[in-house]
């Protein structure tokens, strides 16, 4: 009984080994082809990263490199947006912002939005300093929308919270011009808050 069992096991093992020898060559060829294909794809990716990094470095150095908004990687979009913001090319920056919804990394998109909003707040403050509040208010509202969207994407980003708070005090959110809500303070929507640099009169 025992002997026949061990004989059976030996037979099964021999059959398995024979079967393996038969498929060994095709299996090796297929595995090698697959791993070489994977290697090629990964190498291509690495080269792409290098190309992108070269573009980012060039943008940082001040070269005006056009970027395909639909195909560029997140980091290249970010670098291009920095370039445009720094040179005050608002319309192109806005087009880039509109295209940023296709970005994969929500945190990076939040940062992109926040940097745009920061630029708007800086110019809003400049308008206020010049006493041009009619221009400062819509600018600040746009910035607030962007901060809000940025915080939706990354609720833990402290710097965005802080700058949003600054923007909120330039033009407060009040119930009423958005939706239903409590009482509308009489001086609500157009009041500029008083902690702006260059607006010292407002101190209570």
């Amino acid at each position, binding site marked *: 009984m025992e002997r026949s069992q061990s004989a059976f096991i030996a037979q099964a093992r021999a059959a398995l080994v024979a079967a393996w020898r038969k498929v060994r060559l095709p299996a090796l060829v297929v595995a090698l082809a697959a791993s070489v294909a994977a290697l090629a794809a990964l190498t291509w990716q690495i080269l792409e990263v290098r190309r992108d990094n070269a573009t980012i470095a060039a943008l940082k150095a001040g070269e005006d490199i056009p970027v395909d908004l639909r195909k560029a990687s997140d980091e290249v979009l970010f670098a291009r947006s920095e370039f445009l913001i720094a040179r005050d090319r608002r319309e192109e920056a806005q087009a880039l912002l509109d295209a940023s919804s296709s970005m994969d990394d929500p945190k990076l998109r939040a940062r992109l939005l926040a940097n745009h909003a*920061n630029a708007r707040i800086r110019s809003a403050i400049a308008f206020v300093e010049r006493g041009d509040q009619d221009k400062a208010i819509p600018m600040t509202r746009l910035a607030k929308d962007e901060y809000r969207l940025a915080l939706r994407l990354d609720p833990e980003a402290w710097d965005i919270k802080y700058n949003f708070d600054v923007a909120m005090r330039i033009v407060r959110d009040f119930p009423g011009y958005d939706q239903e809500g409590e009482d509308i303070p009489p001086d609500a929507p157009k009041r500029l808050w008083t902690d702006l640099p260059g607006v010292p009169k407002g101190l209570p």
Partner: protein
Amino acid sequence: MVRALLAALILGAFAQHAAAEVRSVRMIEPRPFGYFLGDTLQRTVEIETGLEDEIVPASLPRVGPSNYWLELRGIEQHAVRRGDARVHILKLTYQMFYAPIDPRKQTIPAAEIAVRGAGGAATATIPAFTFLMSPLREIFPEKSGETAETFLRPDYPNGLRRSGATRTFALIMAALSLGLLALLARELAWWPFHRRPARPFSRATREIGRALAQGGSEGYRAALLALHRAFDAAAGRRLMAADVDAFLGTHPEHGDARMAVDRFFRASHAVFFGEGRRSNPDTFGAVELKELAANLARQERASR
């Protein structure tokens, strides 16, 4: 009388069973203090209902802005059975966009959720939640020569793309490819495994191809010799035509090629020692020789 009472009781029981039934609403609330602008909080609602009852999806709070400072970011919903009851668990995630100047109470308003049963509906009430929101900055920030630059937190710097993980993965794949290539070379007796003792016929196949490519009777002779050497190596001694039977007995994997092997030995004898080589040069042609060697190589691969 008694019968009527019983019937009434049974009817009553049925009626009670048929209507939807909200047995309890349990709230698991987060801390009610310490929230800043842009923070999120998650409330968990556990509504215990009758077994067949369902929550009416349209009665759930709508995802999106609830009012000017509050947004419902998402609802996760699932139900579990607990005894003879069904517990519907709702996880509501809110995000607050209120920028308080001093610590301030805010309230998420109460909401009603409809529960539908086989024979009616009931409502479950999610109570209001009041919590304290805190400011991020002083009420009156110090004015000490601030400019727009110091007023805001700085912009986020841009970074380069990283390819560390991809590189590691590519290195692993390169190592794997090399390993597989080495295994393949060993299997097919390529360099540096070309002298592998277990693959004499694989080697012979290559040598025959090279020899025949030279052409002429010299090349043909060299090809024959190469196959002879392979037979010698496989047998472990010099193999003559008379030994073929013994060789095939100890190497059963080559049994299928017996006819061709016999013809090869006869043809080779004729070429090297016989007279009939001119009269009958095509007994064992170059193509056949190649085929035989490839066949033997395949057989030796399948056996070792």
